[in-house]
């Protein structure tokens, strides 16, 4: 088990961009995306998002598990919503909903409207995921903090985020080590016995040592930081970032998209779309 952010996109076109680009792009993209309703628009955007994703050069083998998990969650999530909201959220009047089938026992309805919404919701999530992966796997280790700093975040918080990334692999291996240490004492982390309370309590042999241990260990980290002058006063960042022409172009492209999305939304051209073949 290795919990860490492998620099999968190393050397790719996006990896050569200023790390701020990847973060800005994703953020602007999301703002624009949530303006769109029409499943057809979302489908087109998804294609664009995928093209962008390909530029991150993330090898498929390395992330197929994440993608699988992601798609399943998206589906289940949107499916429940389709049943509950049954399309009402889509602004389709209840009167004209087309019921395709009723699901026992509660007689929940699966309507054409619901499914249409489900489709666009899934598309939307898939789009966001596609622009999110590069942020996770195509920003060089150690660049995240400085990138966020240059985007206006405070020095300390930027350092704190770098520190978080730094700690993850260490804590993950301590976590594994603790599981081993308890298994040797007959502890079974996969046991399914007992009620919810009992099962929650059974996390203690793992959670307590890892948590308390790392908090106790924090004393050394705090000393190590204080002793190198951290905390008081201004601070520089050694890693220099340059926002090149190409970086500007990428960001502008995303801004253009966002603007377009807003226009479509406000001129009412991107309403929820009822997939015709369902009716």
């Amino acid at each position, binding site marked *: *088990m290795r*919990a860490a952010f492998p620099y999968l996109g190393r050397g790719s076109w996006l990896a050569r961009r200023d790390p701020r680009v990847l973060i800005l792009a994703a953020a602007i*993209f*999301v703002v624009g995306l*949530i303006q769109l309703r029409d499943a057809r628009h979302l489908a087109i955007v998804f294609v664009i998002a995928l093209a962008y994703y390909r530029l991150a050069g993330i090898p498929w083998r390395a*992330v197929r*598990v*994440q993608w699988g998990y992601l798609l399943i969650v998206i589906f289940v999530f949107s499916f*429940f*919503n389709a049943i*509950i*909201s049954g399309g*009402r*959220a889509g602004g389709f009047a209840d009167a004209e909903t087309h019921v395709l089938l009723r699901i026992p026992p509660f007689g929940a309805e699966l309507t054409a409207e619901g499914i249409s919404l489900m489709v*666009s*919701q899934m598309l*939307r999530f898939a789009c*966001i*995921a596609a*622009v*999110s*992966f590069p*942020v*996770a796997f195509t920003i060089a280790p150690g660049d995240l903090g400085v990138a966020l700093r240059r985007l206006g975040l*405070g020095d*300390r*918080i930027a*350092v*704190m*985020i770098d*520190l*978080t*990334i*730094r*700690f*993850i692999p260490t*804590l*993950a291996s301590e*976590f594994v080590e603790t599981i081993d240490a308890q298994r040797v004492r007959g502890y079974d982390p996969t046991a399914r016995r007992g009620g*919810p*309370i009992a*099962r*929650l*309590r059974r*996390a*203690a042999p*793992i*959670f*307590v040592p890892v*948590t*308390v241990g*790392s*908090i*106790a260990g*924090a004393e050394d*980290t*705090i000393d190590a*930081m204080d002793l190198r002058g*951290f905390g008081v006063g201004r601070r520089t960042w050694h890693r220099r970032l340059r926002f090149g022409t190409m970086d500007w172009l990428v960001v502008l492209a995303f801004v253009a998209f966002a603007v377009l999305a807003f226009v479509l939304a406000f001129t009412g051209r991107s309403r*929820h779309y009822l997939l015709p073949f369902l009716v």
Partner: protein
Amino acid sequence: MTATTMDQQDSSWSITTRVIVYAAIGAALYAVFNFISFGFVLPGTQEVNVRPHYGLLTFFGFAFGPVVGFLTGFIGNVVGDFLTGWGAFTSWHWSLANGVAGLLAGVLGVMFAGRAASSGSRALWAAVAGIIATVVGFIVIFLGLVVTPEMSFNAILTTEYIPVVIANALAAAVVTPILVLAWEPMKEQLGR
């Protein structure tokens, strides 16, 4: 006798080195536990997924204050989402909700600090704080109405808010006190 700058003495809102380090550890732990979850589905429900490590968030807030609580929940959830591949931009409002819950746990921790004499009663207050912080903090996820226009208020209430609050309040109520009780004696030793 020397008077010295002591992190723990500063206001519960100031961002000292100690706060930075505790927050980073909290966030990293929250992300890692999120990644290797001990989660299980509450018997008799489909979607109430109990995540023991949620109690870690309320503990960090309760024990180390609102700033640590917020950063643990917010950054921890963002990073955790990235680790699992579920890009944080999909669920930023969830990360925010976690952050707010941690923050509230911290505020309540400061408020309750005076009341609790024995570590036993502190553990009890920690459970209370954890539950309140969860119920209130996760109201934030109704921002989902903006993120996913497909979802109705009812949908969010029934498929997200209620299940998650039940699951997390449960985790907070059980796990937070355990961690408080384990941490109290250590705290005495590390005292500076």
